[in-house]
């Protein structure tokens, strides 16, 4: 049997789909859906292949690093691909009902391009290639935000574009310094060569700054709430679930493989990295507080959900000062759970908006009871975000707390607890309105059942993730992206 090049297929298929959608706008929804299903299956194929063979390296063009570009799949990238596939499929189904044709014909090519960019990004082992995928992702994301039209969305998209380009340039400057220091842009080669030097330090600073900007870590989050809240609901979902995670993934990858300098004498650098990790942890903690408080203060549902993303991103950075395998796994599990739950939440918000024509939280009592499926989705997703059992969020929180206590830095764990309580407060602020019933002031919009069910399925998935944690956690072990033993 011919060896299947799943690694390539998961990049080429969405690109092909995008091209097909672009060429035949009238059939765009069908082509898009077929692509989404095919892509989901391909990622399953890749998963199976990786489970059988272990971590894979694929030399595009047959050259191999350092001259050519390598693709690399290990547990970490595979998990990201799976998250993208799951969320992507859900978003595709949701969008097939959400957009009318005049916007669908723009949405589908852009979305499939974005999907291709994400997959290419997660698979790339080349930091310059990652720059190209970052730009591909950023432009697609901006265009998708702008799709809702209107002053707020366009302004938000504009700001997002500038931020995205700025972040990319910082990153690219870092790439330039690294390349000119070590003559390679391949992550594996760099990880063997990198030593402590001023250029490397400046490169780290630039790349971390650029990626933090793209990941919207406090205080660089200013662009996120307007962009994520004014985009169309499925776009908000994919931005929060996937796009901000992509830059986080790069940061994590570089942190784990390029920055640690495991083969150099521990000393100055280790200390420096420790300091940087503490700073990232502090920013994460600040993000938890700020995002939580801001979410509580919002009067509009989508903004609330967007600020909740700011908070959850803060969680991810609490893993940096812990620097343990459990901590990284916890962060990745959190990323997974958050992606699924936030997708459900934005979809639910989108349904409410669709139905009631607005998303003012104070008037939700007019809507919530009439959309029980949507409300259940919101509530279940909220449980996972709060980190209550049984849910994916709980597993992640448990692991992160465990890592915090084991590393003797329990105060980071405390931030998790605080964040959970803040999340509880804003989630129930919304849920509280579900139990009263008021009259609708106007004719409600029709919400296609598909949109309600997809939201609910994703929310249920967030819950189920709390019961089947060993599987994804074992998947993450493939290729030991986090190192062999506790550092």
């Amino acid at each position, binding site marked *: 049997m011919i060896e299947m090049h799943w690694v390539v297929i998961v990049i080429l298929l969405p690109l092909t789909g995008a091209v097909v959608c672009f060429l035949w706008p009238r059939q765009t929804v069908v082509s898009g859906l077929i692509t989404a299903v095919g892509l989901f299956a391909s990622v399953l194929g890749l998963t199976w292949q990786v489970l059988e063979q272990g971590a894979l390296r694929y030399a595009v063009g047959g050259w191999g690093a350092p001259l050519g570009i390598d693709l690399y799949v290990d547990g970490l990238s595979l998990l990201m691909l799976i998250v993208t596939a799951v969320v992507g499929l859900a978003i595709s189904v949701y969008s097939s009902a959400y957009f009318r044709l005049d916007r669908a014909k723009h949405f589908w090519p852009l979305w499939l391009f974005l999907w291709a960019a994400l997959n290419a990004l997660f698979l790339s082992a080349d930091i310059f290639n990652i720059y190209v995928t970052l730009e591909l992702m950023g432009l697609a994301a901006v265009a998708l935000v702008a799709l809702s039209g209107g002053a707020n969305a366009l302004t938000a998209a504009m700001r997002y574009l500038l931020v995205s380009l700025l972040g990319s340039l910082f990153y690219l400057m870092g790439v330039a310094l690294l390349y000119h220091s070590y003559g390679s842009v391949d992550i594996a080669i760099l990880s063997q060569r990198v030593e402590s030097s001023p250029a490397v330090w400046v490169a780290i600073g630039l790349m971390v700054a650029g990626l933090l900007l793209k990941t919207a870590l406090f205080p660089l989050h200013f662009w996120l709430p307007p962009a994520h809240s004014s985009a169309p609901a499925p776009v908000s979902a994919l931005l929060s679930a996937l796009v901000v995670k992509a830059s986080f993934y790069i940061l994590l990858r570089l942190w784990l493989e390029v920055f640690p300098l495991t083969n150099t004498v521990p000393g100055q650098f280790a200390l420096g990295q420790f300091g940087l990790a503490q700073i990232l942890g502090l920013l994460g903690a600040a993000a938890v507080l700020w995002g939580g408080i801001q979410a509580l203060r919002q009067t509009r549902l989508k903004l609330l959900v967007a600020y909740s993303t700011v908070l959850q991103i803060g969680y991810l950075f609490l893993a940096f000062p812990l620097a343990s395998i459990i901590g990284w796994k916890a962060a990745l599990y959190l990323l997974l759970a958050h992606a699924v739950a936030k997708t459900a939440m934005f979809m639910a918000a989108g349904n409410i908006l669709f139905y009631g024509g607005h998303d003012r939280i104070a008037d939700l009592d007019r809507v919530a009871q009439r959309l029980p499926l949507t409300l259940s989705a919101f509530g279940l997703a909220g449980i996972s975000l709060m980190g209550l*059992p049984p849910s994916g969020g709980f597993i992640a929180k448990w692991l992160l707390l465990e890592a915090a206590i084991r590393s003797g830095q329990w105060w980071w764990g405390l931030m998790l607890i605080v964040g959970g309580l803040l999340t509880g407060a804003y989630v129930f602020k919304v849920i509280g309105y579900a139990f009263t019933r008021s009259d609708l002031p106007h004719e409600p919009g029709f919400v296609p059942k598909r949109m309600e069910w997809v939201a609910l399925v994703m929310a249920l998935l967030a819950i189920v993730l709390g019961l089947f944690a060993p599987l994804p956690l074992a998947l993450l072990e493939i290729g030991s992206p986090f190192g062999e033993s506790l550092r």
Partner: protein
Amino acid sequence: MNWDTWLPLLIVLSSLLVALVIFVLPEDRSKTRTTLNLGGAALKIVLVGIMVWGVFNGHHYETRLPLLPGLDLVLRADALSMLFVALSAGLWMLTTVYAVGYLEDSPHRSRFFGFFSLCVTATVGVALAGNLITFLLFYELLTLATYPLIVHRGTEAARKAGRTYLIYTLAGGALLLLATIWLYTLTGTLEFTARGFLSTLDSSHHPVLVIIFVLLITGLGVKAAIFPLHGWLPQAMVAPAPVSALLHAVAVVKAGAFGIIRVVYDVFGIEFSASLGVTLPLAIVAAVTIIYASMRALFQDDLKRRLAFSTVSQVSYIILGIAIVGPMATIGGMVHLVHQGVMKITLFFCAGNLAETLGIHKISEMNGVGRRMPWTMAAFTIGAFGMIGAPPLAGFISKWYLGLGALEAGQDWVIFVLAGSSLLNAGYFLPILYVSWFKEPAGSWPAERCFGRYETALALLAPPVITAILALTLGLLASAPFSPLEWARFITTLEYAP
């Protein structure tokens, strides 16, 4: 397919599946819903019966599913869990019957009964949990499942009560989580083990263990409504009567109390706890709660609020029994877990009947109600006397053993607490009995509804009557085999093995 490994899971599923089906059931399918509810409840009772018999005969039931690497979701039947499971299963049946009658024709029944079943699922899960993480899982599920029941009516007061409830319980849950993980990092295991699994730890860890103990008890104390963490409970009285009954007699407060038993006995071990010096403070907190809440109860005119404060006080009997280190007191505490449940649910059923039938919410409106609703008030009277601790009712048995246990352990001061509390109990129950039996009715009732043949609907009347009879029987036949008292003795022999 091994029966012994699946039975605990089946017991949990018997209400979980019911809950899920009810959620998707259309509002108007009330027959189907009732059938499902009662069917599920009956099935659960049968399964629990089988299990109790099995445990008594030395069977080992355990379901184990991987939850995290190194941590399993464990449902296990041991003697202690049987006590709580049997109580929950039995009272669920009655409360379901009651709730069907109570909520007839009211809106949102699918939602109500769905969460109601979920609540019972969580309670049973709490009871069967074989380790601390499983306990935590169901404990939090209970928080979430009861919230919609508290805010069910959707009024501003209900929403406020729901908010208060969440603030208390979520914060408590967070402490519990923190303590659990901390414990796990110290020991690498969370399995409930008779006489604890911590005594082998190096003594340098003991100060940390004391902190963990305080965190655990605080986290659990929220649900058990220990003073000063009881604030949510009286507010939660806005919920419909069946919910109050369930919350206060079975599910929430008992989950907290049961958790404290688990922590003291099966995590720390009672002797190790005593050696850490944490039991006496716990006993004192329980004693303060008993007296304080009884005093507060005296001054409540709202019937359900008075009962709520009474609950706060009575649940601490259980904790007191645990904290007095000694087998007799333990028996008293554990048996009170069941006895208080049966008696308090009777009282809440009756309060619900008064509200539903006559619109009575306040004690000042109860003049002469005994003549209008003699059966209800008879049941209420039995429950009230039980609470006071009058022989030969169930409450008497609990207090008797608590007192004996205190003397046995040399904690004579407890006798004064018991006596004081009994006086206060009498102080807030007897006036109710007096006005309802001996005062003249005021003429008309606040909102009377007619239910035909009986003083109220049969579905509302039968449950309190049954539980009242049960409260009487539990006292009279306390020494019969399989009675809670005998079962508590059985447990105690395990915990205090020579």
